[in-house]
């Protein structure tokens, strides 16, 4: 069993009259990818910045290996890496120069900087662009460079604030893969995201944050089991006259119907019965089946469920 690396205890942070974080209790285990999900403005970034000691809480404390981070800033700075929502590097320096610059600020030897740079360039797949100016990189490459900069000091913990924000689906996948590889290399990761499916895919453990409070913490499966008994039937037909199909469905067996793009999502506790019924109805309604998929409930549903309770 992995040991706790970071413990957040009764953390409260206030900006003026706004209570941004209230009595937060969290434990991040060594080697895990810990996700903090929540809506925009829920306090995710504030939590991360309190963890690295940038923000001083009004109440409570953050402990790294049982030491208060605020009393051990030097250690925290040396052992933590932080990838912000924005790309924190110099656009007028090349990829290699940025890595070398931040390596030097960490007081690393030139040999170690060179070694780490080579390793990271390959790791984040920027070797071919090592002499390109930061500003000339694509959005995905910039994000990867930023992550590389936050890894230059071989951090024990990497904190990532919305790592896939503003990226297109292809780049998001690219970055998600990178995060996994970083974690596999032994780095504990704490990340925030408002993209729930992404967190679900990446994180070992997730905390759901809403209006400064942690609503629930657990593995994605734990959360889904706790808060949703439904399955999702994703149905796509042509010409897509879903209103007719919907009318035929028995209300007692279907919890909810949502149209998502070209698809109809049917939430039900009885997926087999409903699916059988739907397939029969399609013929009668003169619809042609294009695609059908049955999924377990997503984190999205859990989140919505939890937020609704609030």
């Amino acid at each position: 069993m992995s040991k706790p690396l970071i413990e957040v205890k009764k953390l409260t942070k206030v900006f003026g009259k706004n209570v941004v974080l209230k009595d937060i209790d969290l434990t991040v285990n060594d080697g895990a990818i810990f996700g903090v999900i929540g809506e925009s403005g829920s306090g995710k970034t504030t939590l991360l910045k309190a963890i690295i000691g940038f923000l001083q809480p009004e109440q409570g404390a953050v402990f790294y290996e049982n030491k208060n981070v605020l009393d051990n800033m030097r250690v925290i700075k040396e052992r933590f890496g932080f990838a912000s929502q924005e790309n924190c590097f110099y656009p007028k320096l090349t990829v290699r120069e940025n890595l070398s610059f931040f390596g030097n600020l960490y007081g690393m030897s030139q040999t170690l900087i060179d070694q780490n740079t080579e390793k990271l360039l390959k790791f984040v797949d920027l070797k071919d662009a090592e002499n390109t100016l930061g500003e000339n990189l694509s959005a995905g490459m910039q994000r990867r460079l930023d992550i590389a900069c936050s890894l230059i000091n071989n951090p024990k913990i990497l904190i990532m604030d919305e790592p896939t924000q503003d990226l297109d689906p292809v780049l998001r996948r690219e970055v998600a893969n990178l995060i996994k590889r970083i974690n596999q290399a032994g780095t504990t990761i704490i990340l925030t995201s408002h993209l729930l499916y992404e967190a679900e895919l990446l994180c070992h453990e997730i905390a759901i944050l809403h209006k400064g409070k942690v609503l629930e913490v657990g593995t994605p499966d734990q959360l889904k089991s706790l808060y949703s008994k439904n399955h999702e039937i994703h149905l796509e037909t042509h010409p897509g006259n879903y209103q007719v199909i919907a009318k035929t469905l028995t209300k007692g067996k279907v919890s909810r119907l949502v149209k998502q793009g070209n698809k109809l999502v049917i939430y039900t506790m009885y997926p087999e019965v409903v699916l059988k019924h739907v397939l029969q109805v399609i013929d009668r309604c003169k619809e042609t089946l294009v695609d059908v998929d049955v999924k377990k409930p997503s984190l999205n549903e859990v989140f919505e469920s939890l937020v609704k309770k609030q």
Partner: protein
Amino acid sequence: MKKILTIIKKNLKVLLFRSRVSATVIILGPLVLMLLVGVAFNTSNIFDIRVGTYSDTYSTLSNSVIDGLKEQQFKIVDISSKQSCIDSVKTGDIHICAVFPPNLDVQTEGDIEFFVDQSRINLIYAVLDAVNEKVSFKSEELSTQLTQVLVDNLDNTQRALTDKGGKIENVIKLNTDSKDKLTKAKGDLEDINLWYNLTDVDLLQNYSENINASDSASKTQLSKLKTSLKTLEKQITDLTEKIKVANATILAAKATVGTARDGIGTSNADLTLVKKDLDGVLTGIQSIQVKNVGNIVSPIKTKIEPIVTDARHLNTLFPALIVLVVMFISLLLSATVVMKEKLSKAYFRNFITPTSGFTFVVGTFLSIIIVLVIQLVILLGVLSAFFELDVVIKLWESSFTLLIIGSVFIFLGMLIGYLFNSEETSSLASIALGSIFLVFSNTILPIESIPSTFRQVIVFSPFVMAEALLKKLLIFNATFSSVATDIYMLLIYAIVLFALVLIVQKLTQRNVLLQRFIDKFKRKRAGI
């Protein structure tokens, strides 16, 4: 040290090598500035100065003064009335209005009036100086002519007196001779003895009577003898009488000659006194050493001479110009670099690295110093190559001084950078501060024109101190030890400002990031 070098390398790359605009401004900026300034001020003349003139009646003298002004590149504008002339100064059509008294000549009472726009005080002093010089020249010319007449007269008097002095000397000599002769004549007269003994004639009579008694000689003969004797006696008596008269006359003449001698003696004494007086006057005239008319007119000549041999504006402006460039470059560059760093997204990453604020401050400072040195090398190179300005005088001392001056302004700029929150406000603050330093210095107006209470503060302005220091070093060739106090003062400024920068950086770094974060948080909360 390694961290500082890394920061310097990064700053230089960002400032010089990676941004064409920055590099162009940094390298070409001072180059263009110097070329422009050099071309503009590499002369001692004042160009395109228009002098308006008015007189009810122009005289030869006033025309002559105007011709003098024309010779000195002034454009002369003849204006129809005094008021129009004054109004033209107000509207800026002319720079100075000269009103000549009607029929100006040497005997005219009244001054040539100059009307100037005091708001252009720096120009006016220069123009007035130049115009005055021309007018003074004419005035001196006239004065010389007048004085020449006086001196000529004096010279003639001297010659006449010298001549008369000789004549008086002759009179004295003649008088002396006369006196001598009279004295001699008196002596001779005194030596004449006309006295005779009448007893001898009686003896001759007695003898005749005896002959008569003893000898029966012809009575007739004897009678004749007797008669003759009687005649003789009578003649002698007459002679005696005459001699008596002569004797009396001689006595009288003797008295007269004595009197004359005394008179001549007195006259001689008087003439001696006159000669003595004349000699005194002559000696006095001869003792006038300055016989040159020009010297008499202006015994103490005033001539405005530059205290350095090269009187080009560029040369005299050089220290102020260098300090000005150093001040603005340092202020703006350091404020911009600090502000760019603060606004950079990498600022947060820098903050979370184990690198102290001191390292960043020193790194930034040294980066700007390097850029400043590059600019100064370009700047001095241009001045030296194109305008033949000797910039290597006291090279090491000047470089050291410039380094301290630069440091003061760099730290001031950094302070502005750390205190302000946007690039615009920090640039504005830097320019404003630079302008304040510039306005309250000797560059635009002499600080002597400022009230003394205020002036006592202004003399401690780093710009004023720096300018004065560099002037002493470069123009007056002062030794390093003689300006040590000024250097120590600037060093103290630099140290105090460095400490302030460290404090402000420490206080503001977290706040800047925090404020940025809070603003972003509020925007998110508000759903913007």
